[in-house]
């Protein structure tokens, strides 16, 4: 089985406002492997967020193709894409976006609910294990609003992993945290990537994150900067 978990070919995205067409992505060809931790870097307006939302199946490209775990997304209808996203993609946002009326445990459990599991106890056990793994076993029944910023983001990481997705897409996950807390969250994501073999794509401005990544992809003006695509040594290489 191929190790490639996510790939794009000739991906473009344009927005039209009257007669004016703005090209945000201008032909992106990328390939990501299981267990990779990749940083997506570039200045504001370079197209990072648009690329992330397309890869996360939230936005359709104008042309080109996205292939996620062997499935070409253009062949799926809206309902299938939603189901597919639930099973294969996890998100971590800059602003944690936890559901305020639910506890930490319920927030982590939430992505499993649309699957209507035959045995909710198994899902609950997994959610508890994930919270334990992100160091919040003592905060499981806290309301989301009662948690600190760093705790909220750790809950968001656990939530992204709830359905054991193949891909986790993180948009500036440390951008709203102080540097110490941000570093803790980043370390946590990096560890989980290695432990679970899940592919992480982290959009960031933070060069420190780039330094901790297996690979850095730089985007400028809607294009991948070829020279700047760095293949960082993986941990196994270092060992």
């Amino acid at each position, binding site marked *: 089985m191929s190790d490639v978990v996510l790939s794009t070919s000739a991906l473009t995205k344009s927005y039209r406002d009257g007669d004016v067409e703005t090209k945000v992505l201008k032909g992106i060809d990328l390939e990501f492997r299981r267990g990779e931790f990749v940083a997506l870097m570039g200045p504001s307006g370079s197209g990072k*967020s648009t690329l992330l*939302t397309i890869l*996360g199946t*939230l*936005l359709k490209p104008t042309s080109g193709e996205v292939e996620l775990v062997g499935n070409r997304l253009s062949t799926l209808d*809206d*309902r299938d894409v*939603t*189901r597919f*996203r*639930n*099973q294969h*993609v996890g*998100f971590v*946002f800059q602003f944690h*976006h936890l*559901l*305020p*009326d*639910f506890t930490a445990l319920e927030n982590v459990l*939430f*992505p499993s*609910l*649309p699957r*209507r599991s035959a045995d909710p106890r198994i899902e609950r056990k997994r959610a508890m294990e994930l919270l334990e793994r992100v160091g919040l076993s003592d905060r499981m029944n806290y309301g989301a609003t009662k948690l600190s910023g760093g705790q909220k983001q750790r809950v968001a990481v656990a*939530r992204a992993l709830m*359905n054991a997705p193949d891909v986790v897409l993180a*948009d500036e996950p440390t951008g709203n945290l102080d540097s110490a807390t941000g570093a803790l969250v980043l370390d946590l994501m990096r560890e989980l990537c290695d432990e679970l073999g899940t592919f992480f794509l982290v959009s960031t401005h933070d060069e420190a994150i780039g330094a901790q990544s297996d690979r850095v992809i730089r985007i400028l003006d809607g294009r991948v900067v070829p020279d700047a695509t760095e293949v960082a040594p993986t941990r196994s290489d270092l060992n």
Partner: protein
Amino acid sequence: MPFELTVALRYLRSGRLQTALIFSGVAVGIVVFTFMAALINGLAVTLTNNVIGNLAHVRLEPAPRVPRQLGEIAGLRTLLAVQRGNEPRAAINGWRDYVETAEKFSGVKSVVASVAGSGFIQRGEKIAPVSVTGYEPGKESEMIDLAAGITRGSSALASGEVLIGITLAEDFGVTTGQRLRIRSDRGRERVLLIRGIFDVGNAVVNERAVFTDLSTAQGLFELGGAVSRIEVKLADVFSAPEVAVRLNAVTGLDAVDWISENARLQEALRAQGSTGDVVKFFAVLLILIAVASQLLLSALRRRAEIGIMRSMGVSRASVTAIFVAQGFLIGLLGSALGAALGYGFASAIVRFTLRPDGTSALPVDPALGEYWLAISIATVAATLAAVLPARIASGVDPVEVIQQ
């Protein structure tokens, strides 16, 4: 429990003040709905009882005999006026068979043969026109509840005795044990002993009706052993037209039901019912608007959460279901609360307006509040009201939310 219902319940629980307000709004709407129903229906029952309390629900009378033309001449147009015969009084002979037949009909409560006619009562120089009705012995109170209305004496009549209304008694200055002379429209006279004086709450009856036993009336109106009509009371007063048709088909007698004879009452009841329906309609409309606006606000306030849910793979259908479920729960629980309050309110009104005789000054009947109908309509209306907010919520674009 489907997770959509779990989320809906959580949303209702978390917005406590808003939820309390919308529940109160629905409940107040239902209090208005059920109180109007209790009032309008209670008023209809009171009016109907007042009218038909003194009436037979179906009256069987001999069919009028219309002279027939004997033969026609071909090719000739016949011009003639048919004059009905001047027979003294149409009568029902063999009435006991008809009474037995009518008693066997389903829904028939009681059947009484009677003789009815008009006449005058006289005492000294004072004369007054009256309607005279003679009932079978022991059945005097089957059509009009004379027994309950007796203010002096007794309602049990023997031959040669009469019951008169309280107004008539006052006009003539008579009381029980005294005698009155009655002359029928056939010119027959009898002096009758006043056995009882009644007050049935109807001015016309109290002033212009006298009741006697069947044989006395038969003598006064020269009917021999016949009666002039057979009166029927039914368990369901509104089935009278249908029972009348069936009785006519079986007996061949003319069957007149109280509804066709009281078209104006029916019109008044219908108009009153329509007024109530308009008020009830607006109560439901207010519930619909209140629920729609509340959920619309909720959908807008929770845009970000909905976008995040969508990004986690919650389908549009599930988002729709979350909001529709909220509408359903608001409608069901709010209207159940409103129905309970409405019943309590109607009962309190009855209690606070009690008159010394035990009846209420307001014709409100708490049992006729149409509570299940109100709950059903409010639940459906609130669920429908949730559809627009649900559609708006399900249309939230997660990309917009995330990028904000």
